């Protein structure tokens, strides 16, 4: 009996061992490392010097532009995604013919899993000098500038993250009990008030999941502002690449990274609070 229990625990430990090691060495320890770096000092030659100071955090306003751009364009991008995504998710979950639903859903999932670099490149191509502007020039609109503008970055954001917004909303709408919609209509509610009072309300967990996921990933976005903003629209991601790979100020970069993670945690908690307050929280799968 006793050896059975022992064997049970031993096997569990063996099964969880590799994953635990991986999580500790490549997630927990690295996080501890940047936390330690963020209260350190920059060595004269560009490395790290042990210290305990909040100077790096006090220096955050030096990258105010990157923070400002990110804090404006990340929520704006997430909101734009949401406005485009909701009708699509609604159609897929409640209006699409049964035999089309899985195909359409697959068409949403596929871009999510294809290279963001290649998809952003596609817009560089479309918005760039020889794309739409060249077409516009042939019908008389010369010198239209589309790429390297905040608008192009916003477009790229919506394009890149739309699938991630559609999926959780779709999941919460699909699980919605349709009898509630009928009951609402039977009780004399107008379609609009049924939508606002039942459908929208019950899909809020999906909306909040999608919104917070997109927000968090946008906080660290680098490719879209770099390729479509052309060095004019700096995000926190750009500041981090600069500080770690070019100007090599690791302690300051670590402080920015820690701030980014803290903001993400706040976003997640806030989203979670809102959705559990308004209805039960739900798990959302990414595929």
């Amino acid at each position: 009996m006793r050896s059975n229990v022992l064997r049970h625990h031993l096997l569990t430990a063996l099964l969880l061992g590799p994953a635990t090691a991986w999580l500790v060495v490549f997630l927990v320890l690295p996080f501890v490392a940047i936390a330690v770096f963020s209260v350190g000092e920059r060595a004269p030659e560009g490395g790290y010097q042990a210290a305990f100071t909040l100077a790096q955090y006090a220096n955050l306003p030096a990258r105010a532009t990157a923070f400002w751009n990110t804090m404006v364009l990340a929520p704006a991008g997430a909101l734009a995604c949401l406005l485009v995504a909701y009708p699509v998710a609604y159609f897929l979950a409640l209006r699409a013919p049964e035999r089309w639903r899985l195909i359409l859903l697959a068409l949403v999932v596929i871009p999510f899993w294809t290279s963001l670099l290649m998809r952003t490149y596609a817009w560089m191509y479309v918005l760039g000098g020889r794309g739409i502007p060249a077409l516009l020039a042939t019908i008389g609109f010369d010198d239209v500038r589309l790429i390297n503008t905040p608008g192009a970055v916003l477009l790229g954001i919506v394009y890149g993250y739309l699938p991630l917004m559609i999926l959780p909303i779709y999941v919460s709408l699909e699980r919605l009990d349709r009898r509630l919609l009928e009951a609402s209509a039977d009780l004399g509610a107008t379609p609009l008030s049924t939508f606002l009072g039942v459908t929208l309300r019950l899909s809020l967990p999906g909306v909040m999941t999608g919104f917070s996921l997109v927000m968090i990933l946008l906080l660290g976005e680098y490719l879209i502002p770099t390729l479509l903003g052309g060095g004019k629209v700096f995000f926190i991601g750009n500041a981090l690449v600069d500080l770690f790979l070019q100007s090599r100020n690791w302690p300051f970069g670590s402080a920015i990274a820690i701030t980014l993670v803290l903001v993400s945690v706040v976003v997640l908690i806030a989203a979670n609070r809102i959705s559990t307050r308004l209805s039960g929280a739900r798990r959302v799968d990414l595929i």
Partner: protein
Amino acid sequence: MRAFVVAVFAFLYLPIALVVLFSFNAGRHASEFTGFSVQWYGKALSNPFLVEALKNSLFIATTSALLAALCGTAAALGLARVGARTRAVFDALLGAAIVVPGVVIGISTLVALVQLFGVVNPFLASLWPNDQPPRLALGYGSIIAAHGLFSMALVAMIVGTRLGSLDRNLVEASSDLYATPLTTFRSIVLPQIMPAVIAGFLLAFTFSFDDFIVAFFVAGAQTTLPIYVFASIRRGVTPEINAIATIVLVVSVLLVVLAQWQLRRRKPSS
């Protein structure tokens, strides 16, 4: 609403379609299609740097996805055997591995590994006083490990979901009929979770093959295909890049469709 949905799907697919179309363009310019040609594929595949980057990416994606499929599946099986509290800790860590932006994963792995190498390399050097001591450095290993973190968490999540919907009656029936736990696992559990394991592997491969930002930080002197493409894009848009982009897109689309098909299969093949 139907018109809006059609427009959104057009929005999602038209830019990609344009890139694919113009990868077969005979001319150089994006604004006019001057005839069908595969010359840009030939140019791309005769570029030794590009082929090297492609090989690196394939190697890294295969290795990290295999490791992730093994460790992630083991973790999902292990998590089904532990208490609620341990499970919650693991779920939080696995969730963090998926949700934390790639920039942060890349940076923190870079910082931790550079510190670690700073300790380990002098130690190794002291063990090999005469010969060339082995030196740890950023490269294949660090990219595989950093990609594998996300992928393993992904596999654990997908396989865990499938384990949760496993038919308990079959497992109990099997042990009632005196099958050993190993036989029960091989003949009941494994066939049922296999589609999820395969789907997890395929998605892990796709993630690693497509990832730019994590590899950008931890690649050291190595180049992966996305890193190479990023560098070329910044020098300017060329038809060769359309050809590479098309290849990458086709590979990921095929793998994702395959993964979805695996996940949606109802009856496991035993």
